[in-house]
């Protein structure tokens, strides 16, 4: 993966497969303490302890077509290679939380990339709500698809609405951190 936002969409797809209806993503950049912390929390079906132990193993997957699953493994190696770690917490029937931590100024840290595209792609899934929290040092911005649905109705799969959301998120991120990371 070339960007962190691509890892994000991958993990979000896991949540969607786990029948999550609400996915909360938080991305926190702290220049002063030099870290980037990302968490993805969903209310999907979760995993039992046995699966949880093996979940970062590339040869473990829930899909039937093949016996490899690289999503979490790739994300973990992206964290490890820049002095960070990846943790997965889950409770069966409750949901799953993925936490990724990286040294922000590490030379191998992937660029954050295009977050707005990731959110818009995630919103194409039916019956899924996305909350995105972006924090840069002390400043923050929050996007909640439930707020949008209050205005335009349940169906967000409309090019004009998606276009609006895309620009809205991009502008707000730009306002906070210049969008340069």
């Amino acid at each position, binding site marked *: 993966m070339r960007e962190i936002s691509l890892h994000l969409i991958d993990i979000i797809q896991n949540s969607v497969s786990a029948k999550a209806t609400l996915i909360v993503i938080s991305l926190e950049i702290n220049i002063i303490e030099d870290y980037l912390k990302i968490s993805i929390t969903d209310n999907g079906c979760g995993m039992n302890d046995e699966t949880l132990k093996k979940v970062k193993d590339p040869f473990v997957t829930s*899909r039937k077509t093949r016996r490899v699953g690289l999503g979490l493994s790739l994300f973990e190696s992206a964290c490890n290679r820049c002095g960070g770690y990846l943790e997965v917490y889950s409770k069966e029937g409750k949901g799953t939380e993925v936490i990724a931590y990286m040294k922000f100024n590490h030379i191998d840290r992937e660029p954050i990339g295009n977050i707005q595209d990731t959110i818009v792609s995630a919103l194409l899934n039916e019956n899924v709500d996305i909350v995105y929290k972006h924090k840069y040092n002390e400043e923050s911005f929050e996007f909640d698809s439930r707020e949008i649905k209050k205005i335009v109705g349940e169906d967000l799969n409309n*090019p004009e609405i998606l276009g609006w959301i895309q620009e809205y998120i991009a502008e707000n991120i730009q306002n906070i951190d210049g969008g340069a990371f």
Partner: protein
Amino acid sequence: MKSIQELEAIRKKTIDNVNQRKDRTTTRIVVGMATCGIAAGARPVLLSIIDEVKKLGLPDVSVVQTGCIGVCRLEPIVEVIRPGEEKVTYIKMTAEKAKRIVDEHVVQGKIVDEYVMHVVDGKVVNDYTVQKD
């Protein structure tokens, strides 16, 4: 800045469209968005399709995502399913190729042969080019 008023204006404009879409038959454009697809560049493909659909103002098209289609080396993969027609699978997509598929296949109904996956005896025969008889 994008404003909420703008969003409300979009809603008023599109509400008729949404109603129409429910009872008419829609063309489905499916993009493979598993790890393999994403790594190969499926997100720009997906967004360029949405963009093109918006630009052309196509009301009867729904753009959806799916998981791994099963031939990861040919990702990004886009499938087009027009009502009453057989599914067509396009492989090794880029944002530009995807735009062409919307213009030619979805709008005019002409399949873009160069990008279609050709399967003979269960084997994909055109990883890179179209095979002519």
